[in-house]
């Protein structure tokens, strides 16, 4: 039982940390996207120092997806904290969805790479991998670790 609650604690910590990272990245990207869209403020400082650092260009839907993934993890953490084991389901689905969107962005990157290097599309001349690196890709490393660690456990949830 102690071991079981220990594992739950692990998952709670994982969900809190991952969820917060996603929410943070999503919020910064959302703020940057809204400012860019509405042309509200001079973004030069913000863009070069924070958004560029996070590889988070103006992308409203991308930012909302990060927030959604973050919310799923946090929802799971709150459920576990309230004593409901259903929270594990939220962590499991959070991991799946974050990996799914990391895969979507990697495929988009692959498409652009093919366009640029194989087909020499002049529209994306000088394209580099960094151009398409998104928070959903590098943040995906955390859920991937979670998946690899708890893969078996998630698979046995019904037993």
């Amino acid at each position: 039982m102690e071991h079981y609650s220990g594992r739950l604690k692990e998952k709670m910590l994982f969900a809190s940390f991952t969820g917060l990272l996603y929410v943070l990245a999503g919020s910064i990207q959302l703020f940057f996207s809204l400012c860019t869209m509405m042309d509200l403020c001079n973004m030069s400082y913000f863009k070069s120092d924070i958004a560029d650092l996070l590889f988070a260009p103006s992308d409203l839907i991308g930012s909302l997806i990060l927030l959604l993934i973050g919310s799923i993890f946090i929802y799971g953490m709150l459920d576990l904290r309230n004593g409901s084991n259903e929270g594990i389901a939220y962590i499991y689905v959070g991991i799946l969805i974050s990996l799914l969107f990391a895969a979507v962005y990697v495929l988009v990157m692959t498409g652009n790479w093919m366009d640029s290097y194989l087909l020499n599309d002049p529209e994306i001349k000088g394209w580099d991998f960094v151009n398409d690196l998104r928070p959903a890709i590098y943040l995906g490393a955390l859920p991937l670790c979670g998946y690899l660690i708890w893969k078996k456990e998630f698979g046995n949830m019904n037993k």
Partner: protein
Amino acid sequence: MADNKIRVALTGNPNVGKTTLFNVITGSKQHVGNWPGVTVEKKSGFKIYKGYEIEVIDLPGTYSLTAYSLDEVVARDFIVDEKPDVVIQIVDATNIERNLYLTTQLMELGSKMIIALNMYDLAEERGDKLNVEKMKEILAMPVVCTIASDNVGISELLDTVISEKQKDDHHAWRIGYGDEIESKILEIEKVLSQDSELASKYPLRWLAVRLLDGDENILNKISGSIIASEIKNILASLDIEEYEALMADKRYECINALFPQMCERCMTRMTTSDMIDRVMTNKYLGIPIFLALMWGAFELTFSFASPFMTIVEKIFLWLGEMAAIHIHPDWLASLLGEGIIGGVGSVFSFIPNIFILFFLLSLLEDSGYLARAAFIVDRIMYKIGLQGKSFIPMLLGFGCNVPAIMATRSIEDRMDRMATIMVLPFISCGARLPIYILFAGTFFSKNAGTVIFCIYLLGILVAVTSAKLLRTTTLKGHPAPFILELPPYRIPTIKNGIRHMWDNGSMYIKKAGTIIMGGSVVIWLLAALPWGVEYGSENSFIGIIGHSIQPLLGPLGFDWKISVSLLFGFVAKEIVVASLGVLYGVGDDHFALTDSLLADPNMHSITALSLMVFSLLYMPCIAVVGIIKKETGSWKWTAFSIAYGLIVAWLLAFVVFQGGMLLI
């Protein structure tokens, strides 16, 4: 029927694997979906096995023989009227208890029955202990374990079909309904027996049970009989609704008594699938997750398909150049280069996008997620006057509106069904995708995926708003309650995904080689005639047609070329792009259609947006008009659908164009 011929009906609850089993036995490639209601018509196929010619009929899924919706009527009538030699009920091994309700009704029919206990691997995987021998003994019929998707148990099933066909005795199992109901059954049976024709056609006890169950279809079947009035008098003296409920109770009592003997540890418990559902169908997270997944699908459809699209485009450009250089006389080079290669090539270059979208939708469908989507939106749909069941045809409509409109047969309530049919053409089919990709890709480059996603969302929004309008005016009424069985989540296989992608996508390749090619030739002729005029000029026939309709579409920002392309889009929506390909002379020079559009001073992002909105909503293509007429049986509703679509499209495109012009 000859002794070596066997007619087998496949029946069962929705989404238990009937069509998969049908495909495995007959080698057919009927569409299989991981949601209920995929089969709305019966389909038949043949199998030669051990010297027997076995005709297999795949019936639409039904929960009971009390047929409520059109597809259930098809299933029930076939078993009752056509009397197949053997009826195979496919039972979902992970949900035996619910499936047994139909079993109790089928057994009353006295047909030769076999139970195919499908997906038993999934039941075992989750820890159920099925006692198949006990099941055979209790139900007094053969039970064969199958995994249709893996071709397991099929030979045993076919062997059992042959041995059942050779048996003389029919199934004689019956449920006791209690003294009061049994006496009424006997009374009705006695009256029915006076009609010898009826007695030779149907089992009388079954007829009596159905009549006491308040089955309107059965009442219609006996309406021409000499005993019809006597039966009606008996039924009028009874509270049929109460009888119906009592009889259903008795069936459930029976199931509750039998089920624990057939399956140990088959109690309800939380599975992985249930756990995932807690999140996917969460009140607050369900819809955002659905929207995010759909956006992901459209983003990939545009971005990942882009290099493949470029390759196809380059091939057709090269072909066009070759035609211009090597083919003589000039008119033939123009017909091939500007007409056929330009038109067909413009559509062909979007085939990678169409295939990728279908592949992704098929993965979502096979995983079982799309059935959840119907569940998630049910609450919203109910508020606007439709039931969640209407969302399943809408999802099918992303592929093609024709099968989507046919799928509305699973909607029991006529008003719900009519409203769904009327709004389905607003759901963006694959044929409209090339238009969006062309214009979004040309004028919105990096945000193209998001623009296309928004266009699809607009289609859904207009559909649901129109449904609300219809349900509060001409098709007034409350939506029927929606009961949807959620299939378990499954890991989608690449093989199935590719098969579905090919099934849906190959239609566009065929269309490109037939209708689109024909349309391109017609448009080329109209652009080249009368002889002597400049190709595609305002003085050509197409220019004259374009100019005559342009005043109607001018307020939306469309010039005569766009106007005439939209007109030809009535035949098939892909022709819009093919026409533009012909009119912009693709194939004759080194420029792709996108370059020609960018160079056109009349075209800019607002016009592109207005055009996408108009293409999404304006009249359905000719095939959809045909199916609307067939399914509604009314020219009035068909005409309404066309007129309503045109008006809504014009108004919204007007708002987009004029509003956009004011803002820039």
